[in-house]
Each structure stands twice: as structure tokens, then as C-alpha cells.
């Protein structure tokens, strides 16, 4: 996982509320191997018409400069748990997503894939949107200092829990990290299964119709 520390970029504005993960990546692309590059499928149905031509009102303009930061409407990432929605953003080069609310599973997937989710109050969010309406305008997101900087002398602080910050800053593989707790897991398992033997399911039965 690619670490995230400081990102400076113009922002992609996706300001509709409740952008669900079916819109971010339509289900028919979820069978594609990751190596195909999931950026191809990002907002596919909103970007392209049925013949594969770019729509005039595409949310992502092919002529826009590279954008590593997204300002997204309230409740971005709701719906399906598909991690492909996060892959579509990260393969597109997005490293930071800022909204007034980020759906739970999407947020969790983001942290595990080097996509920094930042939740802001509405007034702060509006200030950033106003600034970024100018396509040339840039934001800098600094995860070390938990700061967003813009227009030379403006900044605000954001909150993120320390565990998520650490995982993103160092690009930590969470399985490797958990294996450090193996002894705790073994001890827990032993006691838990002795006390609750019924949780292990009956296997090897073949049910009949």
C-alpha cells in the first residue's frame, strides 16, 4: 500500500449528495482483474454514453489537470461494500477524499488502500469548494500535521484517529501487523472455544431436499 503524507493538487469536485459505490464503479466491471487498471471504470456510466463516447456532462473531464484530491458531496461511498470503488479512485491517482460524511465501509476500505478520508464540517467544506471552483486552484493536504492548506496563507485542521493516520502514513500491511498479536489471538481462541463449543459449525453433513 502506497503511503500518504503530503499531497498538493487541484481538486476534483463531485458535489452530488449520496454518491453510491454502484455509480463509482458499475457492478459489471467488478469481475475485471485489478491489473486491468480500475481507473478505466471510475464513474463509467456517468462519463460515457452507451456507445462509449464521453458525455458532455461527464463528472470527470478528460482535459482537466491531474487531480489527487476529491471534494465529494455528503455521504460519499454509500451502498455496496465493493472495494473496487476505492480501487477506481486510487488507480485514477486520487489519494485524498474530503466530504461532510463518508460512508462506513467505503471509509474503512479507503484507509486500507492508501486513500485518505477526511470528514469536515459543512462550513469548512464549503470554503474549500469555493476555493476549488477555480480549476487552477490547489489544495495541500498534510497528514503529518493533519492540516489542509490553500491560497498561501489559509489552513484548517482535520481530525483522524491515530491508528488510521499511522496506517496511511506508513502504508502498513494490516495482516502483517496483526500477526504481531498472534499469541493474544491464540489465547483468546482457546478460552472462547472452550466456553462456546457450539460456535464451531457442524460440517460434513449433506442435506437432502
Amino acid at each position, binding site marked *: 500500500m502506497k503511503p500518504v503524507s503530503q499531497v498538493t493538487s487541484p481538486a476534483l469536485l463531485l458535489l452530488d449528495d449520496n454518491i453510491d459505490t454502484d455509480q463509482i464503479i458499475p457492478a459489471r466491471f467488478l469481475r475485471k482483474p485489478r491489473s486491468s487498471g480500475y481507473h478505466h471504470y471510475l464513474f463509467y456510466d456517468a462519463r460515457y454514453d452507451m456507445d462509449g463516447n464521453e458525455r458532455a456532462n461527464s463528472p470527470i473531464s478528460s482535459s482537466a489537470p491531474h487531480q489527487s484530491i476529491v471534494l465529494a458531496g455528503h455521504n460519499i461511498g454509500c451502498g455496496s461494500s465493493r472495494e473496487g470503488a476505492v480501487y477506481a479512485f486510487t488507480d485514477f491517482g486520487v489519494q485524498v477524499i474530503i466530504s461532510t460524511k463518508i460512508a462506513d*465501509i467505503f471509509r*474503512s476500505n479507503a484507509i486500507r488502500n492508501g486513500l485518505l478520508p477526511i470528514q469536515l464540517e459543512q462550513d469548512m467544506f464549503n470554503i474549500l469548494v469555493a476555493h476549488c471552483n477555480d480549476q487552477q486552484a490547489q489544495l495541500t493536504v498534510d497528514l503529518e500535521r493533519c492540516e489542509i492548506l490553500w491560497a498561501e496563507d489559509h489552513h484548517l485542521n482535520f481530525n483522524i484517529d491515530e491508528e488510521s493516520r499511522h496506517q496511511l502514513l506508513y502504508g502498513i500491511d494490516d495482516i502483517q501487523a496483526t500477526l504481531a*498479536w498472534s499469541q493474544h489471538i491464540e489465547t483468546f481462541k482457546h478460552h472462547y472455544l472452550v466456553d462456546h463449543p457450539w460456535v464451531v459449525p457442524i460440517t460434513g453433513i449433506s442435506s437432502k431436499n
Partner: protein
Amino acid sequence: MPHSTLTLFEKIWRQHLVVTTGDLDLLWIDRHFVHEGSFHAFDKLNSSKREIAHPELTFGIADHYVPSDLAKLDDDPEIAGMIHLLDENTRRHQLTYFGLGHDDRGIVHVSAPELGLTLPGLIIVCGDSHTTTHGAFGALAMGIGATEVAHVLATQTLWQRRPKTMQIHLEGHLAKDVTAKDLALHIIYEIGTDGATHHAVEYTGAAVRAMSMDARMTLCNMTIEAGARVGMIAPDETTIHWLHRAPRAPKGKAWKQAELYWRSLYSDPGAEYDRSIIIDVSDVAPRVTWGTNPEQSVPIDTGVVPELDNGHSTLSYMALSPGQPLLDLPIDQVFIGSCTNSRISDLRAVAAILAGGKVKVPTLIVAGSNHIKVQAEAEGLEAVFRAAGANWGESGCSMCVAMNGDRVEPGKRCASTSNRNFPGRQGPGARTHLMSPAMAAAAALHGRLVDVRQLTGNSV
């Protein structure tokens, strides 16, 4: 907070806590279900040469890509390939697998409960957001992403931030022809599609106690549509009765021990939730969605499209006008199925409406599992469906998520018993209206949205 006053959610969470770092808790996972879409997680595991920590707690099931007509499996090699990939991964890791042709196969959220793999007090995860369904049994069940799936496969544990708790207390009794689906749509309408985000929901109250397990599963299933990763209901006699006949539920001494524990799984009197809301269900009417997220629903009898700007993106996508009634809106097709509404009671409700009639639009009915399919055929429901001119598909997710080759064509309007009306959910450009099985059946007979109570003669 003293230990004597815990919510149902807190009891189960604490029971599974391996370690905590403060922000994050490491939880033991009792059940893990994998499906075709889990291939990303298997890739991560295989590429790092890791093994599955507890194959006996992990079950594979093919559901998302299963074609409605199995004879057409090889028509799309990519779709067939997804199922074959799951065949391979489950074989390689020696998992119990319900693949094509297995009697126990079906939609994971329908089959696992019916087999007794879903039990009260368990933590259950699956790489699918509708895992909330299993909360109907008093399990703590969560949808997770692919990286989390890989983590559970490798360690049988999961790091989670503890969500806040939210009680949705349901008073009163549902009127005739009003179902758990209508209630779920009503709740989401009331609190919004993000109304329970960052929370674990527990449903309580007389209306919940009166519900069958099928209805409870529908309610918990739709909890994710209000943003909650967890929706749960404390186990009671209804739950215990169901589990008694579930083939893989504990038996003998293990059952006695389990039952004793299950009966301790309720929110203690005085236990505090971070949020509580009360809803009187008595006035809930059959509902339909008009928009492109599940909070956008109205009662069928009086509901009209809200006064949004003409040209609002939702209205143009749905081809609707402000002030337009939903009643009598012409539809092009009907889908009855999905993990929300494909259980035997749903199919019986559909048959009761379709009996003796003919559908006016193409109608696809898909049972939630192979067992339900067989039961529906034995009960004569399938005969009713076929006589009415409906198609009867192989069990699976089918047209709810349009991954298996079934889809709604661009611009077509579908009355659907599924859970999501997002743009493109049932196919690019598809227009979805969510509703209960009986309402969808009534729409099929008329070729337009109707109030099911007009067919059943129950007063509106």
C-alpha cells in the same frame, strides 16, 4: 457503565474482543462467507502465500454471478469464469463450498440462515454490505471490503472501530398488506440514507416481536440502506423455533448450552443507546421509491414525485415530473427476488396475488436459495407463476445487481423487490422502483404501479 446494563450489541462485541489499542478493537470472527466477488481477497492471500487460518469457520457460496438460466452459463465466459475462480479458490483452501448444483446453494444471506450457519451471538462477516441480514438472529453481522476479507481469511480476526449504538423502537402493528419491506422503506425515508451511518442499529418493540424471521431478515437487510453496517434483533422464541429445524445449527448437548447463552442476548433494562428513535408502524402504507436512492419513497396511494426542479438529475434519470403520482405509473418489467425479498413467505405472497391472473409485462421471479426453489415448486407456487406467464429463475442475486447477465435495459422501468434503486444498479440507464413482493406482483398483473390493497380488498 456497570456490566449489568449492556445493549445486545455491546454484549456480543465484548465477548469477541481479543485486544484493543484504544481506537481500534481486534475482534474474533465466528463465521466468514466468501462469494465470487471475494477473488481480490483470495488474490491477496495467494500472492503472499498465506493460508486460511480457520477453514472450518469459512464457507464459500456462489450467488452473485449465477445465471437465471443455468443452461446459459457459458454464454458469457467472464461470468462463468467468476464462478470457476471461486470453485478453484475454495478447493485450494479446502473450504466447505456451496457451488453450482449444490442443494444448499443460494444467496448467502438466504442460505446461511436457512442452514443454521447463522446463529445468535456470533460475529459474522462477508464481503457484501447486505450481511446486515444475519442480524435478524441476534448476530453481529457486518459487510466488509476485500482487504478486510483477506485479513479475516488470514487471521480469523478483524480490526474495527466500535460504532455508536442506535435503537429503532417500533411500536404498534403493521396493517394488512403492509410488509417489513414497506416498513424498511418508511424508516429510511424518515431517517435518511445516511441516518444510521457510524451506528449499529438494534430494532426493538412490539412490531418487531410480531415479525416472522423472514420479515426480520428483510428489515435487517435494508439497514445498510440507512448507512448502518449492523442491524440486529434480540433472539426470542421465534428465533429459537427457526434454529430448531436448521440442519447445521447445534444439536444435543451443544444446543442446550447454546440456547442458554442465546437467551441471555438482549439489551438489559436501562441499557443506554447513543441514539433512540421511536416509530409507530400502524400508519405505514405500502411504499414505492420514485428516485435513485432508497430514502426517496412515498406511500403508493397518495404519493407524488416531490417538487424538485424540472430537469433535476434524479428526475431526468427516472423520467418523472414534479407532482406526478406514482399510482398508475406504467412499468416495463418486474423483478421479484434478491436477499431482501426472495424467501418462501415472499413467494407465497406473490403467488396469492398472481393466482389466476396473467402478467402484462416480463416478470422474473428468482428464489433466494435452492431449498426455497424446491419448496416453492412442491407447494405449487411455481405452477402459479408459470401459469401467470412469469419466468422462474435459478436461485441467486440475479437482477438485483445485474452481474449474472440479467439486467434491465436502458430507459426501461422495473418494479423490483430488491434493495437498491441507484442509477445503473440493475443495468446502465435502468429505472428501478423498489417495493414489496405483493406490490411487485400487483404491478406485474397491471403493467403499472397499483395499490396492492385494491386487489386484496383490504381497506386503504
